[in-house]
């Protein structure tokens, strides 16, 4: 995962550096005063209303005041201007979209990078590379590491039993994720009971029963067609009576366009009032990931997300988009079909990895 994005970020950095260097060369060739002034902060950049970079429009007129440039040059510095970056920024946007970063989120990242870079001065001896890297890092950290919290600690510290309900569309891997997390908690010395709140899908009971048997976990389930809220509620009661630490509540996959089923999800949320709701989506999802994350968050407020099938995906954009849009962290990545194929999501390591640090 993320290899594709990494390659593209690398090439953006090279392009942006080249573009800035080129501009710098022109600058030093054309102007040559030698006033001495104190290196002030550059003047604020003109407000850019046009957020999208268009490589075709070649507008005249500088985005940075002449005075700033003069000052900067005088102090042996060079100012990066917006038009120097248009083409690399456009390419960056395409690269992000190509990595499945949702378009709105890609624009947020772009705005951040632009804000960081444009009007920035650097000493002629500095490398532009450092600036570009820093700008990218700032932008990425800001969108990727949204709302991270210590999940393990949150679970341990909450009053037991801790109830966690899993939501998401069909086929993203909610049940498999629950099985993996069942093992995750048991390994950390917490007892677990699973509630099969998917009373709809054919084969759902059989699927979760096999997982529970394989992992030696207690399963609470009702007949197909039963009330999902009641199943989870029963599991919580069971946990209370038997001193179980964690209740993992499955729900039927549903598309966010079904008002009835989303209403049912809200009902489960109201009746069960879980300590945590985790939204499960797949890493291979494209632009739609954001939309459904929002809709699920509306129906039953989400505390974090799990991205599955990360091993099938080399883009990684969905992870970035979902966190940014819900304001809630990505907590885990599903990386395979085995019970141990679950990884904590570490945004800082990811950004470092993306930027080759």
């Amino acid at each position, binding site marked *: 995962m993320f290899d*594709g994005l990494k390659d593209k970020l690398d090439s953006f950095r090279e392009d942006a550096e080249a573009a800035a260097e080129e501009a710098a060369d022109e600058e030093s060739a054309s102007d040559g005063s030698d006033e001495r002034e104190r290196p002030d902060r550059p003047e604020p950049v003109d407000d850019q209303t046009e957020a999208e970079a268009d490589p075709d429009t070649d507008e005249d007129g500088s985005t940075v005041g002449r005075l700033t440039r003069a000052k900067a040059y005088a102090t042996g510095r060079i100012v990066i201007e917006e038009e120097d970056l248009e083409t690399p920024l456009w390419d960056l946007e*395409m690269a992000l*979209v*190509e*990595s*499945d970063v949702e*378009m709105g989120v890609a624009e947020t990242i772009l705005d951040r990078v632009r804000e960081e870079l444009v009007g920035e001065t650097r000493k002629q001896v500095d490398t532009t590379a450092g600036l570009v890297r820093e700008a990218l890092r700032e932008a990425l950290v800001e969108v990727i590491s949204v709302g991270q919290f210590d999940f393990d600690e949150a679970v341990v510290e909450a009053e037991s039993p801790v109830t966690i309900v899993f939501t998401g*569309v*069909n*086929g*993203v*891997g909610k049940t498999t994720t629950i099985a993996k997390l069942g093992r995750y908690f048991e390994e950390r010395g917490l007892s677990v009971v699973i509630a099969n709140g998917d009373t709809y*899908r*054919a*084969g*759902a*009971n*059989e*699927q*979760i*029963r*096999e*997982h529970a048997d*394989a992992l030696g976990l207690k399963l609470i389930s009702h007949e197909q067609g039963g009330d999902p809220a009641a199943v989870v509620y029963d599991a919580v009661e069971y946990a209370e009576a038997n001193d179980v630490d964690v209740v993992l509540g499955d729900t039927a996959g549903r*598309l*966010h*366009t*079904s*008002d*009835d089923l989303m209403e049912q999800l809200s009902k489960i949320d109201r009746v069960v009032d879980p300590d945590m709701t985790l939204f499960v989506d*797949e890493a*291979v*999802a*494209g*632009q*739609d*990931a954001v*939309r*459904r994350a929002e809709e699920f968050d509306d129906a039953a407020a989400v505390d974090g997300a799990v991205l599955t*099938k990360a*091993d*099938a*995906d*080399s*883009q990684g*954009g*969905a992870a970035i988009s979902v966190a940014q849009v819900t304001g809630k962290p990505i907590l885990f990545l599903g990386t395979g*079909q085995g019970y141990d194929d679950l990884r904590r999501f570490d945004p800082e390591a990811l950004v470092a990895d993306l930027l080759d640090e």
Partner: protein
Amino acid sequence: MVLDDLGSSLRGTLDDLRGKSRVSEEDVKNIVREIQRSLLQADVAVDLVTDLSDAIERRALEEEAPSGTSARDHVLRIVYEEMVDLIGDSTEIPLEPQTIMLAGLQGSGKTTTAAKMAWWFSKKGLRPAVIQTDTFRPGAYDQAAQMCERAEVAFYGDPDEDDPVQIARDGLAATEDAEVHIVDTAGRHALEDDLIDEIEEIERAVSPDRSLLVMDAAIGQGAREQSREFDDAVGVGGVVVTKLDGTAKGGGALTAVDQTDSSIAFLGTGETVQDVERFEPSGFVSRLLGMGDLQQLAERVERAMAETDEAEDDWDPEDLLEGQFTLRDMRKQMQAMDRMGPLDQVMDMIPGLGGGMMDQLPDDAMDVTQERLRSFEVVMDSMTDGELENPRVVGKERTVRIARGAGVDESVVRELLEQHRMMERTLKQFQGMGDGDLQRMMRKMGDQGGGMGGAGPFG
């Protein structure tokens, strides 16, 4: 429904052209830009988007609009043609004995698709059987068995055998008398070498006439890699796009079609076994552009009517145009509509009602309607045969009785009677009309629907 958002901003840009007879370079640039955005937001691969928009831009500037054609229609036609060209025709699925193997990522909807396709073949008069070879995912066997029961089609699976290749072989033998064999496989992804080897083995064992790649409409840019690897492994002969009843646009399918040099075969549009449609390029693009799609509506209506006929031989929708319109007729009509699927899906296919018009309706308008239909059913259950045949006999006293029997408010009973009177009045106007009149009227209705439906270039 599905592809509507995609259409709306594009439609806005195209509407700016209304009344113009020539398009300027600027107009074309704006449109191409909107198309690019729309397609990227629909998960179409970036390079495909570039190719497509280049072609549209070139043609829109070079080609003269034929006389009498507005600039808007001219550009729209180019957009439409290029899109259809890219998507291609639907995969040819001959109605004859054959073996089809399904492949795809975990959770893309292969098992559901297998049952849906079996149902589809059975409606076409062939005897299908589904062979479930997924020995990995817990519950896969039970899910497939239950889905096939709902679809009323033959099923083979063996929960005690753990070699999928053996199950595939046994399954073909055990379902020998079936005409169409649909082989379902375990979910896997392109980077799992051992699983890719396994599906190659299954493929050799069943030697399918075609292998279909089942793909979630929400898949992102990874569609390219996945479809390339599956194509290399088993040769993808067509694509099935699932979960199109969500908001995902299904642009990944275009990438898959381009990558595997195949086409789209089926669309999955819901969780029940009937929620399957044959892919139809003009319809797909029409929906993509936020236009109504009469052809698919017609297909659904036809299918729903055929089913109603099966259930009740003595009822013929044509009777509506002659003689009495009773409450019984109204119920049949409601049931037929119910079978066509959720009302909003049906509405979306009607020219003039899809796209723009749906945007203006409050979100829950369709739900209310469906709920109302359901409560009408309950009311009718509490009526006598005489009342159903001749609702005029229902006065105040009977209304009270019916309401009490149905456990609803009296106003619901009155609403039902009012609805019936309205429908009866409408039908009276149809009665006595010749076919030509009817067509003229439909055309007129199409024209009023924003001018995009019947009179547009794709009518």
